[in-house]
């Protein structure tokens, strides 16, 4: 038990929680990394470049 006035101790995660968190993070990366690595659509880049050239 923590002493009065001392910050509460952080509960330690069970190994199964850690395993799940690890698996979840890997899954999220598998799902979302791809979109960030893909080339930016030409149309989008053109939109930005057009605006840059108009300045």
């Amino acid at each position, binding site marked *: 038990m923590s002493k009065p006035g001392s910050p509460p101790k952080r509960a330690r995660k069970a*190994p199964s929680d850690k395993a*799940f968190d690890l698996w979840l993070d890997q899954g999220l990366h598998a799902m979302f*990394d791809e979109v960030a690595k893909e080339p930016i659509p030409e149309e989008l880049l053109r939109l930005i470049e057009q605006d840059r050239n108009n300045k």
Partner: protein
Amino acid sequence: MPLPQDDQAEATMVDSAPEVSFHDLLVAALPALRQQALALTRNRADADDLVQTSVSSALAAQTSFQPGTNFGAWMARILRNRFLSNMRRRREIVDIEDAPASLLARSGGQEEGLAIQQLRHLIGKLPADHRLVLIMISVQGLSYEEASEQLNVPVGTLKCRVSRARAMLRRWLLGDDEAPKPRVTAPKTRARASVPAHALSALPAAPVMAKLGRDNGEAQLERR
């Protein structure tokens, strides 16, 4: 008074550092914006539309951006506002299952692909604001403070959302609520027994999870 030589060199470097233009910042922010848009919309086509309209809004409002302030935060707010405005207009979202197959994981073989498919389906069931912050923290690697600045939401609220999102996914995937307590006969086996085997086997990710649980348990036991 003349500056010491080192300071002079530094001052020259700062003066001559090329100024990053608004458009350069915008292009550099696009990969992260696309991830955030996918997290919000759950659908690739909608995510592309959301990024495109957000970029148009940003270009139209570029004079309101103050150079030297956080560009990522400025863009994230535009993206989120556009999303909320679209939601209000449409009041419906294309289901995650309509996501093109190209979004599914291509590595790790069939079992991992099925697990990701299941995870993708369940992530689509999380509230959009939970999903977004989960991606910002777990995938984009932002600190809670950075995410808080970008979303203009207190750190405590964000921590709560991430924790709740993880707990929901865990419950849906492993069915912890229904799972009977594992029988533990000796304290030394507690670490391994705490992963309910039947719950793991019900999950498409069973082989991956079981291995992770086993590795984790073994690592714990080895340390003793």
